[in-house]
């Protein structure tokens, strides 16, 4: 068993940390000359603080809105609940850049032009990441054991149960979600660029495009790494490692909660935001697609891209899931290596995507690896390198919320390891595993910069195609492609949700 974990860890080091370590290895010898790039001053410092403020504001806003919506959806089963849950996911696969374009289009239509600069970027990013934060908050709520809530309901009003029991118990997972959104925003340059908001990643990007020197970019990205590490530390170290059993698959307890008026108002407002977040991009895309025939046409000349996007996303999410499970376990083992493993997990999250691409090429572009070079394995490896840390962190939260006694009991009682795994571990960890796989799938489907660096010549993904047509200004094609992207990502998601439901 140990040997297998070691192998898993080794694969993680190679696939996920490898590209980053290659970059570090080639960059660090130039430290004396480039070190000062890691300490932004003057204008760069302003840009960095803009970025931090933007990412923090987006993460907090999404935490609040996502939680409010999740509290509304929580325990709401049946048509309404199921329908709303699907609605939440509808726009998740669209890259934030597309959200931005849709919002600008919508605001232009009603002649509202006030959305610019950091505020504009904040608004669109909050909208674009709302599905993600809602899903994670929902998962967080569903993991709270019902008897803890019942014990509270016997003694105190619902509002108190909400703020003193449900809230604190759900916070760690929800906070991990906010931490994740913080990281995604921190590196995002497309949306701030559209709104003319000056942020640090744009400067990094400008530097990379003018010098083409990965080492310089590596040092410039170090402050982002520091910020990411701090945020994750705060997210994960700040709560008691309370073990809770899964509750998500228990039969629903018909215990109505009566929320106070302020909460219901706030929920109403958050639901309106959710509706806007869905309606604006979807309506824009549908308006611009104009006809079903257009969709058919685009599907006809994008079959290969659709298939490939799907395959790459699927493989990347499976690979990230397996590697994440191994390393999440490793992150929980105290010892001198623990901090190092944390760095290994966090670093890829804090590096600009195209830099990760350069690292990937550094690592894999060798004579012995020629077989890999021209295949779709490269984009899979690229997406895994970027997003396996996301899977790792989600699984880590799930692991730390699972009662170790249950796992120990399985280890003692199960006649075979496979049985312990299939019978106990997977079902206990299932919410986290599904969440991380789904997340990686969606993130991969929308990945652009790293994919461009390693996409096999002659091939393309749906997102690459979307961006290519964006420049040409063929809005109808772009809209139809976006529609296709949403469908191709969501259909498998809906199927999985169906299957899980049935199992329950």
């Amino acid at each position, binding site marked *: 068993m140990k040997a297998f974990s070691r192998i898993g860890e080794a694969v993680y080091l190679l696939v996920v940390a490898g590209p980053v370590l290659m970059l570090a290895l080639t960059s660090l010898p130039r430290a004396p000359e480039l070190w000062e790039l890691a300490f932004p001053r003057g204008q760069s410092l302003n840009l960095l603080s803009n970025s931090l403020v933007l990412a923090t504001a987006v993460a907090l806003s999404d935490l609040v809105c996502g939680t409010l919506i999740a509290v509304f959806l929580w325990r709401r089963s049946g048509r309404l609940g199921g329908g709303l849950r699907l609605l939440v996911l509808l726009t998740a696969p669209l890259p934030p850049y597309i959200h931005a374009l849709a919002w600008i289009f919508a605001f232009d239509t009603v002649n509202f032009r006030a959305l610019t600069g950091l505020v504009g970027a904040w608004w669109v990013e909050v909208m674009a990441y709302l599905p993600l934060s809602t899903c994670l908050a929902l998962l967080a709520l569903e993991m709270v*054991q019902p*008897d*803890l809530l*019942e*014990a*509270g*309901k*016997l*003694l*105190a*009003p*619902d509002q*108190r149960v909400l703020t*003193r*029991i449900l809230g*604190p*118990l759900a916070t760690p997972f929800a906070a991990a979600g906010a931490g994740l959104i913080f990281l995604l925003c921190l590196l995002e340059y497309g949306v701030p660029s559209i709104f003319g908001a000056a942020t640090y990643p744009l400067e990094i990007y400008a530097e990379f495009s003018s010098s083409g020197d990965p080492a310089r970019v590596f040092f410039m990205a170090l402050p982002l790494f520091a910020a990411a590490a701090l945020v994750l530390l705060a997210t994960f170290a700040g*709560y*008691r490692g*309370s*073990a*809770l059993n899964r509750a998500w698959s228990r*039969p629903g*307890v*018909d*215990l*109505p909660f*009566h929320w106070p008026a302020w909460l219901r108002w706030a929920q109403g407002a958050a639901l309106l935001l959710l509706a806007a977040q869905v309606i604006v991009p979807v309506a824009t895309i549908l308006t611009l697609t104009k006809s079903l025939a257009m969709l058919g046409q685009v599907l006809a000349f994008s079959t290969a891209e659709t298939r490939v996007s799907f395959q790459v996303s699927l493989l990347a999410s499976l690979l990230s899931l397996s590697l994440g499970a191994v390393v999440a376990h490793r992150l929980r083992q105290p010892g001198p290596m623990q901090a190092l493993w944390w760095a290994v997990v966090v670093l890829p999250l804090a590096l600009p995507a195209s830099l990760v691409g350069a690292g990937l090429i550094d690592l894999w572009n060798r004579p012995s690896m020629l077989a890999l070079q021209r295949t779709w394995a490269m984009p899979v490896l690229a997406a895994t390198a970027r997003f396996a840390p996301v899977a790792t962190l989600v699984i880590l939260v799930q692991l730390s919320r699972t009662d170790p006694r249950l796992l120990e009991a399985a280890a003692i009682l199960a006649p075979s390891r496979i049985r312990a795994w299939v019978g106990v571990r997977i079902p206990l960890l299932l919410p986290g595993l599904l969440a991380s796989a789904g997340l990686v799938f969606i993130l991969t489907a929308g990945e652009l910069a790293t994919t461009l660096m390693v996409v096999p010549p002659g091939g393309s993904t749906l997102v690459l195609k979307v961006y290519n047509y964006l420049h040409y200004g063929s809005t109808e094609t772009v809209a139809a492609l976006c529609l296709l992207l949403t469908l191709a990502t969501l259909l498998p998601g809906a199927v999985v949700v169906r299957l899980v439901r049935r199992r329950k």
Partner: protein
Amino acid sequence: MIELRQVSKSYGPVGAARDVTLTVADGQAIVLFGPSGCGKTTVLRLIAGLEAPDCGEVLIDGEVASRPGWLKAPRERKVGFVFQTPALWPHMTVAENIRFGLKDRKSEAFEQVLGVLDLVGLKNRFPDELSGGEARRVALARTLAARPRHLLLDEPLSNLDLDSRESLLRVILQAHHESGGALIYVTHDTDESEAISPKRIRMQNGRLLQ
């Protein structure tokens, strides 16, 4: 007084309580026993308002507290409920767990239960730092501190050693005596049930066999 009038509750095809009619007068204590899964816990949950009945009514102190589609909030029923598992909130200390239901943070009830249940030294510990027996004492203290009029106890002393069991039983009976309400006690244990009440009701397949 607690009254159930022809109350039924089922989970899907499984009938957990069938046509249950039961009256427990103020000052009275009864013991519910029967094989596992016979519906004892469901009856307690119906009284506490954690489940809504499919048909029938639950009355507490003469007022309707549950009927199909309508529930009075659990905390307004003046009932205390100790679960089979301690169900302590893992993010709160022992003191915070016990104080949770108290309106007056400095209530003497809090100090009193700490003393009576010998928890003074454990006040600042978290649930994961407690032994099984200690956790049960905290769960009982949490319920008693709120001074409920009626007590619903679901195997509250299982897995405890004889000494602790005897002392906790004394505490429970004392609390029942002081509140003057009804007490419903679920157990398999003959010694416990003898100590609680001579009135023992057997349940089977969701029905009361008086």
